[in-house]
Each structure stands twice: as structure tokens, then as C-alpha cells.
């Protein structure tokens, strides 16, 4: 299962996402980029059943693009998160889609925001979030070391700690973690840990 560790710092959001694509006991691809950009200032990471992941990601990305073209207004992170939640909630009783999502975005008026949505349509806005089996290992570490309004270097240091724990104790060898940052300048990749 995918590991996504995301936190909010001072005027930026940072996330670490693993880059492997597994199929049963094999690693199919070691350098997969699972982050999807929505607009110029939002990242959407979807994890779950493989077919549902690709179908749902495409659906959300294109729907948001279509809506912003129709209305001429670029969507905020809050609206995208609520839109995804509504779609998942409706799908729950018609054609269930088993995906969990993290949405990390930067709006000029609000700053960075992080939303976690699970497959039942539970939406939660958080300061830091871990998605996947790794959450059992990493969440308590983040509870202990996370501070609000961190700068970039301490945030990356905290991510290094979290990834260290995973490399030590997690059963699956998630070869590399891609680090991405969102701030007022847009989305960019920082590197691979």
C-alpha cells in the first residue's frame, strides 16, 4: 500500500510519497510519480485498488479542470476536497470505489491546507497526515515532533526521521521517497530520499 506523509509548514506544504509500483510480491516500477497536479497549486494523491485509483484520479482531475473552464474561476483546495468527498459519498452506495486520498494545496488567501479523505467519504482537514499502512508507525512520531509553522529545513528533517523509521521497521522495501513542496510559487519536486 502507498505511503504518503504530508505536513503543513509556514506558508508551504510538503509531502513525501513512495515511488514503487508493486504487483503481489514484485516491484513492477521503482520510479513512479503518484502525485497528480490539479490546477497549478494542488496535489492529489490517491491510493487503493489499482483500477479504481487510475479511474478516480483521472475523473477528479478532468472534472475539476472542466468546471474551472466552465465557470472561469480556479477552484480552491477546500472546494476540490469537498467535491471529491461528495463524489465518493455518492459512489459509496452505487458503485463503491475503494480509494483513500490526500489533497495538499496552497491558496493565496488561506495559505497551505491539507485534507484527508477516506473511501467512505470522511473528510478531515489536518496539519499533518500519513496515509497507508505506514501510518501505524509514523503518526506517533509526527505527534511528538510536529510543530506549527515549521520552516523547510526542519520539515525535511522531520520527514527524514519518518522515512528512517519506515526503512528500519516497515516490512515493504519502499525504495525511494519523492519529496514535493507546494508554496506560493507553485508545485515543485525537491528530491528523492
Amino acid at each position: 500500500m502507498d505511503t504518503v506523509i504530508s505536513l503543513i509548514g509556514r506558508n508551504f506544504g510538503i509531502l513525501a510519497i513512495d515511488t514503487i509500483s508493486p504487483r503481489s510480491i514484485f516491484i513492477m516500477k521503482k520510479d513512479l510519480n503518484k502525485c497528480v497536479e490539479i490546477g497549478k497549486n494542488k496535489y492529489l494523491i490517491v491510493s487503493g485498488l489499482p483500477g479504481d485509483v487510475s479511474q478516480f484520479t483521472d475523473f477528479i482531475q478532468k472534472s475539476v479542470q472542466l468546471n474551472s473552464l466552465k465557470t472561469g474561476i480556479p477552484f480552491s483546495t477546500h472546494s476540490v476536497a469537498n467535491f471529491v468527498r461528495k463524489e465518493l459519498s455518492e459512489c459509496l452506495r452505487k458503485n463503491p470505489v475503494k480509494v483513500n486520498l490526500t489533497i495538499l494545496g496552497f491558496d493565496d488567501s488561506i495559505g497551505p491546507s491539507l485534507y484527508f479523505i477516506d473511501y467512505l467519504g470522511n473528510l478531515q482537514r489536518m496539519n499533518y497526515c500519513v496515509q497507508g499502512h505506514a501510518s501505524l508507525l509514523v503518526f506517533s512520531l509526527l505527534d511528538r515532533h510536529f510543530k506549527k509553522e515549521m520552516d523547510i529545513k526542519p520539515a525535511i528533517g522531520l520527514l527524514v526521521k519518518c522515512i528512517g523509521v519506515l526503512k528500519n521497521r516497515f516490512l515493504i522495501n519502499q525504495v525511494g521517497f519523492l519529496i514535493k513542496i507546494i508554496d506560493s510559487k507553485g508545485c515543485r519536486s525537491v528530491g528523492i530520499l
Partner: protein
Amino acid sequence: MEYNGGCVIAMGGKNCLAVASDLRFGLENFTQGLNTPKMFRINQKMFIAMTGLLGDIATLKQVIEYKLSLYSTKESKTIRPLILVTMLSLFLYQNRFSPFVVETIVAGLNENEKPLICTMDVLGATSFSSKFVVSGTCSESLYGICENYWKPGMEPEELFKTISNCLILGSNRDCLSGWGGMVHIISTNGVETKSLKTRMD
């Protein structure tokens, strides 16, 4: 119902009302968030509180907001608690064969400042009470505690102390509820909101 956890109490006093809920957002045994009160303000004198699946709680809250906007536009007045209870009960029953997995509590002050408290199950079966209603994973403990501590004719300050004690004591032993609490006290003067310090486990 036990997937996300949570508990809610509503208590009636002398021309006042109090609603309290815990703040936990969990995924079965894992606590994911600590800032999710399960109460929503409808208007100056009414609250709706729900426990159950958080996704359905959010959907139902949006449905209620939509229906209330339509009502206030058509009728040009604010809705009374009893009307909302009936509307909600009918709406919940419409999903008879794929119900919203929530247990709702409606708490509001009538025009004559008397509190109206009502609880509904997943299909909208209503149960009014003049004393208190509870809902959530630890509802049995809450029933016991509230039955013990509730007195008729409580003023807002005493009502706040009683409902806070009941929430803390009732959710202490339940692992799926707790992690903080929030209380809204509704009286003729308005709504006061207070946070509670509870065991964080």
C-alpha cells in the same frame, strides 16, 4: 456505526439547552484527528448532533442545510424544532433500504423558550424526551450517568457542569470516544461554546 466512534449528549434545563460532543475522528481503532465536533448549528436556537459514519454525517448536514434554505425561502421564516424533526425523520426513512448510518439528535428552543430534544435512529424513528438524550458508541454508559445526574429546572451554569461531567465520565471508559470535548449552551441570551479537557486516550 462503530467505524468512526464518537458520542453526543443533549440536555434540557430551565429555558435553556446544552449539547455536548467529543472531538475524536477515528478509523476503527486508529485515531486520525482530534478536532471533529459532531454538532452543527442550524440557527440561533437549534443544533443538530449526529454520531455514526462521518461521511454520512457530512452528507446529511449538507442535505439539511439545503432543505432549510429552501424552507426559509419558501416560508420566509426560521424553522421550528418540531418541523425540522419531522422533515428529517421523513428524509431518513426515504432511504429505507440504504440508510444513512447516523443517529441524529435535534435540540432546540421553542418560541416559548422551552427546550425540545429528540433523538432519531438510522431510519428516522423519533423519540422525544424532556430530560436528556444521548447517542454514540458509549450510549449505555451515558444513559446511566445522565440518569443519575440530571435534575429538573437547571440553570445554564449548572447545566454546563452536569453535561460536561456526564460526557467526560461516560466517554472515559470508551476507547472509540473522547480525545477532547465541546459543549454548546443555548439559552435566551444566545449560544455559549466551551471546550472540555478530557483524557487523551
